C-alpha cells in the first residue's frame, strides 16, 4: 500500500476483472449475434428494418425519448411486465441487434415502447400524439413535439401527408394544415417498427398461470 506501482497493479487487476466481465465478455459474446431464420416464411427474427426506421432511431436519440420511455420487457416473476401486456415475452440481447444504440431506458415516466408498434398501428395516430399528446391523453406528461411539424397554408389541394383529425389548442386553423417533417416521418416509421413479439427460442413465452 505504500508503493505506487503496487497500488497501480492492484487497481489494474481488480478493475480489469470487472472490465473483462462486464465489457469484454458482452462484446465478444453478445456483440455478434445473428438473426434467426423463420422456417415458415424464410424471413428473419428479428425482422430487418426499413431505412426510414433506421433514420428514425437518430431522431429518437436526438429528442431524448429514452429519458422517459424504456424499451425492455423484463423477466417474470420479479417484474410484471408481461402480465401488464408490455410484451408477450422477455426481451433478450438478440432483440436489439437491429438498433444502433440500445435504448433500454432508466425511467418509465411514459409507457414502455418495446412493442408500441403492436398497440398503435397507424402512422396518423402517432403523428397526432407527437404533435399534441395532451389532446389524446390529457392526464399524460408528454411534451408536444410540434417542432417536428410544419404548419402550412393549404394552397390548392390538401397535402396527402397532412395529419388528419387534429384537436386541441394547436390544431391548424381552417385553410391550414400540419405537415410532418422528414424527421417526424422517420421517427414514426421507427415507432411503427417496434415489435418484439416474434418468437425467439431463447425467450419462450411464459405459459399462462
Amino acid at each position, binding site marked *: 500500500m505504500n508503493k505506487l506501482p503496487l497500488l497501480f497493479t492492484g487497481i489494474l487487476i*481488480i*478493475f480489469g476483472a470487472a*472490465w473483462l466481465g462486464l465489457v469484454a465478455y458482452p462484446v465478444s459474446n453478445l456483440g455478434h449475434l445473428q438473426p434467426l431464420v423463420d422456417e415458415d416464411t424464410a424471413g428473419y427474427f428479428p425482422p430487418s428494418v426499413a431505412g426510414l426506421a433506421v433514420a428514425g432511431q437518430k431522431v429518437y436519440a*436526438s429528442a431524448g425519448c429514452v429519458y*422517459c420511455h424504456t424499451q425492455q420487457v423484463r*423477466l417474470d416473476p420479479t417484474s410484471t411486465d408481461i402480465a401488464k401486456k408490455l410484451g408477450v415475452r*422477455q426481451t433478450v440481447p438478440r432483440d436489439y441487434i437491429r438498433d444502433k444504440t440500445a435504448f433500454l431506458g432508466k425511467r418509465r415516466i411514459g409507457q414502455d415502447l418495446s412493442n408500441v408498434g403492436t398497440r398503435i398501428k397507424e402512422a396518423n395516430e402517432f403523428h397526432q400524439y407527437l404533435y399534441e399528446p*395532451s389532446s389524446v391523453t390529457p392526464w399524460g*406528461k408528454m411534451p408536444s413535439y410540434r417542432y417536428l411539424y410544419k404548419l402550412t397554408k393549404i394552397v390548392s389541394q390538401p397535402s396527402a401527408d397532412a395529419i388528419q383529425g387534429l384537436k386541441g389548442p394547436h390544431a391548424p386553423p381552417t385553410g391550414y394544415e400540419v405537415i410532418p417533417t422528414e424527421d417526424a416521418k422517420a421517427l414514426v416509421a421507427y415507432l411503427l417498427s417496434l415489435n418484439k413479439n416474434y418468437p425467439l427460442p431463447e425467450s419462450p413465452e411464459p405459459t399462462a398461470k
Partner: protein
Amino acid sequence: MNQPSHSSHHEGTEVRTLSNEERAAIDASTRGPVILFIGSSIFWLVIGTCLKVVADWQLSFPSLLDFTALFTYGRIEPAQSNILIYGWASTAAFGAGLWVTARLSRVPLLHKKLLISAGIIWNLGVIIGAAGILVGDGNSIPGLDFPGYASPILLIAYALIASWIIITLCYRQPGALFASQWFIFAGFLCFPWLYATANILLVWNPVQASAQGPIACWFLENLTNLWLAPVAIGTGFYIVPKLISRPIASPSLSVLGFWTLILFGSWTGISNLFGGPIPAWMMGAGVAASIMLIIPVFSIAMNLHLTLSGKYEVMSWSPALRFTVFGLYGFFFSGILATLLALPKFHGALQFSDVFAGASLLSLYGFVSMTFFGAIYYIVPRLINAEWPCVTLIRCHFWLVLTGLVLALSALFLGGLLQGFAQFDVASTFRSSIEFVSPFRFLSAIASVLFLLGHLSFAFLFVLMLLKTGKSQSGPALLNEPTENSLETLAV
C-alpha cells in the same frame, strides 16, 4: 501552529509536518489551476441547476418551453445531468484532487501553465458537449450524452490533468502514501479507462446494440463508484482529520474500505439491468456485488465516525466540516440504499420509478456534491489567504441545499413508491402510476428551486471571495462560536 500529521498510513511511523513556509509555497503553486477548476465548477453548478429547475418543472407542466426543440425535456434533462457530472462534480474533483495530492505529497506543482490550459480545454469540452445535446446531437446514453465530437476534447484535457496528479505522486517527498492519496489515485486512474471504453464501444464505433446494455450500466455506475466517490472520499479523509486535529482512527479500516470499494463497486452497475436483456450470471454477479458493497460502505462510515466521535461539535461552527461530514454520511446512506434497491424484489417493482431517481440524487448530490462543497470551503481560503467574507451566505447555502435535499428525497421516495406500486400491480393502469406520482413531482420541482437559490448564494460568496472583500476581516468565518480553539491557522 504545527499540525499533527495526517498519519492515516498504517505503519504509524514518524510524525511528518510541513512548516508554514513550505505549505505556503505549495499552496502558491496550486493557486492558479485549483482556483480555475473550482471557479469553473461553481459556474457549471449554477448553469446545471438552472436547467435542472426547468427539467423538473417540465415534469409537472409538460407544455413549459415546448415550442422549441432546444428546450424540450428530452434535451434539457440529459444536458443538466451531464453538466452536473462533467462540468460541476468532475471539475471540482480535479481542483480538490490536485490540491490534496500536492499537499500530501509535499511538493509544489510544476509547470502550472500547462495545467491551466488543460482546465480551459476541459471547460471548452463541456461547453461543446452541452451545446451538442441541446441542438440534438446527444447520444441518449445516460451519463454519456456528450456527442462524439466533444468527448475527445475532454479526454485530452483529462490526460494532462491526470498526468499531473501521477507525476506529483511519483515525485512526492519520500514516505508512505496516505489513504487520501490511494483514493484519489484510484479515481484518476479509473476515469479515463471508463470514459474511453464507453466512448469507443458505445459512441465512436458502437458495438452491436445487443452488447451495449451491460457496458452502459458498468459505465454509469462506475462514474460514481470509481471516479467521483474515491476522489470525494479521499478529499474528505484529508479535510476531516485536519479540521478536528486528529488522525484517521483506523488505518486498517481505510485499507479494507479502499480495496472492497474497488472490488465490489466495479461490479454493482449491472444489477440495474436485473431482469433485462443480459445473461443470468451477470444479474447474479450484480446483485451479489451490490450486497457486498455494504462492506466498504460500513468500513468507511465506521472509520469516519470513530475519527469524529467526541468532535462532532466542530460541525456547528466549521462550514467545511459540516458539509464534508454531511457528504460522507450521504455516502453511507446512498450505499445502504443501493444495496436495498438491488434486491430483486424491490428492484423489480421500483426499477423505473422515481425511487431510483432519488437514489441517484442522494449519491450524486447528497454525497458527492456536499463533500465537494466542504472541500471548497476548506481549500479556497488557504489559496487566497483570506477568510470567507459572509457568514450569512454560507448559512443560506447550507440550509437551502439541506432543505432542498430533504424535500426532494422525501418527494422522490414517497412518490416513487406509489408509482412503483402502480407500475408493478397488474390491476393498476399506467395512468394511475402517473397520477400517483404527480403531486410529489411538484414537490421535487420546488426542491430544485431551493437548490438553485442555495447555489446562487454559494456562487455569490465565491465571487465576493475572489474580490477579496474578506481581507479586512480579523477572524475566520465561523457559523457559531467555537467552544475550543482549532489548531489550523485558517480555522475553517
